[in-house]
């Protein structure tokens, strides 16, 4: 139980990776705020699963691009758990389209959710983390920030932005015992990747898509004391796709 007595917030926790992260943190003893946007049913299922195993969790709807909604999320977590030790910024959207055809809205929404959402959530936990002089922030980026994919200029820009944000934030908060790192998943088994027509497996040295649990384990590691000297790094979990 490496995360006993810790309180965590996971955004986008109703999706494949987010729910796996919430469950992995809870399995290590963390109390978890399961933040979701649309899929209340899945989020409640994740929170229920945690509680059934004897852990603490609650699900709450959050719009990460809206700073007021994010502040409510952090306030609620502080009220129920008394602290915030871990923030996992996992919420994200895809609006793929070739740049020449991409609308302003498609560009903006992806930047608003993925990048501004990460900014909003990080900013909202800083005060409690500075006050307690400890904290772990794990941002979820993407292999797409390193290996260009046609149709993902918005997504790649937002995810590369998260990497930059991580490294700059480290310079602001390290002295307060706050560690900020990024996990960049590659192609992970999900509804989205199940619908892909191109056989991307040929591009992946390990020859398969990853599993959400394989990403979640890295996030749980970065949240634990085992990662006490890892700061401002991006750990790519992609089976070798970007090599």
């Amino acid at each position, binding site marked *: 139980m490496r995360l006993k007595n810790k309180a965590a917030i996971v955004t986008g926790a109703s999706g494949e990776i987010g729910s796996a992260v919430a469950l992995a943190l809870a399995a290590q003893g963390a109390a978890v705020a399961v933040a979701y946007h649309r899929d209340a049913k899945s989020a409640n299922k994740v929170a229920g699963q945690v509680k059934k195993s004897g852990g603490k969790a609650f699900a709450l709807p959050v719009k990460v691009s809206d700073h007021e909604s994010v502040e409510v999320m952090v306030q609620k977590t502080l009220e129920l758990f008394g602290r915030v030790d871990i923030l996992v910024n996992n919420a994200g959207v895809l609006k793929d389209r070739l740049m020449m055809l991409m609308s302003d809205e498609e560009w903006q929404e992806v930047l608003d959710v993925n990048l501004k959402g990460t900014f909003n959530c990080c900013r909202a936990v800083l*005060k409690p983390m500075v*006050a307690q002089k400890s904290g772990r922030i794990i941002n979820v980026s993407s292999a797409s920030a390193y290996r260009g994919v046609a149709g993902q200029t918005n997504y790649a820009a937002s995810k590369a932005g998260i990497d930059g944000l991580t490294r700059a934030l480290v310079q602001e908060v390290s002295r307060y015992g706050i560690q900020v790192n990024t996990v960049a998943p590659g192609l992970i088994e999900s509804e989205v990747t199940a619908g892909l027509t191109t056989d991307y497996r040929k591009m992946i040295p390990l020859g398969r898509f990853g599993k959400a649990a394989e990403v979640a384990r890295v996030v749980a590691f970065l949240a634990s004391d085992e990662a006490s000297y890892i700061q401002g790094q991006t750990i790519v979990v992609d089976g070798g796709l970007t090599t």
Partner: protein
Amino acid sequence: MAARTTQRLKKMIVEQLNLDRDPDQIPDDEFLFKKGLGLDSLDSLEIIVGIEREFNVSITRKNLKKPEEVFSTIGSLAAFVDKLASEK
């Protein structure tokens, strides 16, 4: 009220930031940064959470509109704290 706030602030800053200074010897118009108390901008994060704890006030982006002015001297910071306390 202002004199007492100033004194509490000096003591809090010296203690929280482990400064090698006697709080009673710090003038009210001492600058917080550079050649004054020698703090850097990142220390202001700790001062903010320290003020909230010490004075039971909330510092937000809405009430801290001009951080550079507020975090200029001990005196300017004390005036800001008094203003927040009076608005509670």
